[in-house]
């Protein structure tokens, strides 16, 4: 907490409320992280003590929040331009940049060390890498530099189920890599759909999103390609035999829906129609990811519970 600052125009006392600090953690992103990490923890073979599991989820959530704070520290200049982000604590003038930086660094260190000491160091290493990847590789480097920013940056958001898995097993395996890939391939169509109907915002902020750089047509094409890849990977757990065919059927149905919305978007040339289709795909993509992981957890959870009862 910075009470004294070397810049004269800065207030001498921090005026931040506790809620402002909480907002730095990006609670809405955090909820998705918590959800996917819990699924990773549940579907991993074996079991951990509930308190250890709780500790792992807590550390992953705090680590994700810390990278959110670091992102807001670095991106304060562009957050102040876009309507979607202008009310974040730093552009709103509630928290200073230095406070956000200190907050993010302290929480990063504490979440990684706590996860390592109380759970295991494979999970802690993955969490540290995730924070580094999101704060440095994505935020500082890729986001403002390449229209492929979210493809690679999306990897940061794909790690939580893998960390949850590693918290139980202490390993990285093909199954946890597939959980990673599902989110990784889901991210580009999800964000490009958003970028299609928020193109103006990103234009003003000078962020090289795909629609701004390569145009709508190229974005629509890429969304369709990623949707097909996503559909294939979403089926992999059933095909590789670590989830049941019931999961496979549900995944096939959901993926068909995803590809359907992507195909509708792909066919639109009229700008207004296209933005409408992009909104629909964006909304469905949220339902899709939530449903896929929920079904996976229910499926593998049921198998585990049944197995332990026999």
């Amino acid at each position, binding site marked *: *907490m910075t009470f004294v600052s070397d810049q004269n125009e800065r207030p001498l*006392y*921090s005026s931040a409320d506790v809620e402002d600090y909480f907002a730095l953690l990006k609670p809405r992103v955090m909820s998705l992280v918590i959800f996917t990490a819990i699924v990773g923890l549940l579907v991993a073979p074996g079991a951990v003590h509930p308190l250890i599991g709780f500790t792992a989820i807590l550390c992953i959530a705090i680590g994700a929040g810390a990278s959110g704070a670091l992102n807001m520290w670095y991106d304060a200049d562009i957050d102040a331009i876009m309507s979607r982000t202008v009310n974040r604590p730093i552009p709103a003038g509630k928290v200073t940049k230095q406070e956000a930086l200190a907050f993010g660094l302290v929480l990063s260190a504490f979440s990684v060390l706590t996860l390592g000491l109380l759970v295991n160091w494979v999970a802690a290493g993955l969490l540290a890498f995730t924070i580094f990847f999101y704060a440095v590789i994505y935020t500082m480097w890729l986001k403002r530099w390449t229209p492929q920013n979210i493809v690679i940056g999306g990897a940061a958001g794909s790690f939580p189920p893998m960390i949850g898995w590693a918290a139980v097993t202490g390993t990285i395996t093909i199954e946890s890599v597939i959980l990673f890939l599902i989110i990784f391939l889901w991210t580009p169509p999800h964000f490009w759909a958003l970028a299609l109907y928020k193109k103006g915002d990103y234009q003003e902020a000078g962020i090289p999103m795909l629609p701004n750089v390569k145009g709508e047509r190229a974005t629509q094409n890429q969304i369709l390609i990623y949707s097909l890849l996503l559909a294939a990977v979403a089926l992999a757990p059933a095909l590789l035999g670590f989830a049941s065919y019931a999961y496979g059927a549900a995944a096939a149905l959901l993926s068909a829906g995803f590809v359907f919305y992507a195909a509708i978007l792909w066919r639109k040339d009229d700008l207004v129609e296209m933005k409408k289709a992009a909104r629909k795909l964006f909304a469905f993509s949220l339902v899709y990811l939530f449903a896929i992981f929920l079904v996976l957890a229910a499926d593998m959870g049921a198998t585990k519970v049944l197995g332990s009862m026999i």
Partner: protein
Amino acid sequence: MSELTPEQTEELKKRRRKRSIALALVLGALAILFYAVTIVKIGPAIFQRPL
């Protein structure tokens, strides 16, 4: 500082107090967490100490 009205100073103090309480709660929870996990990890062996 000199431009702040007494009300503003009061408000800042109130917020600082809120932040301090939040930090104390977080640190307390962290200590309890480490204690609880230690017990869980050592398990029943915690009673098997040489007399």
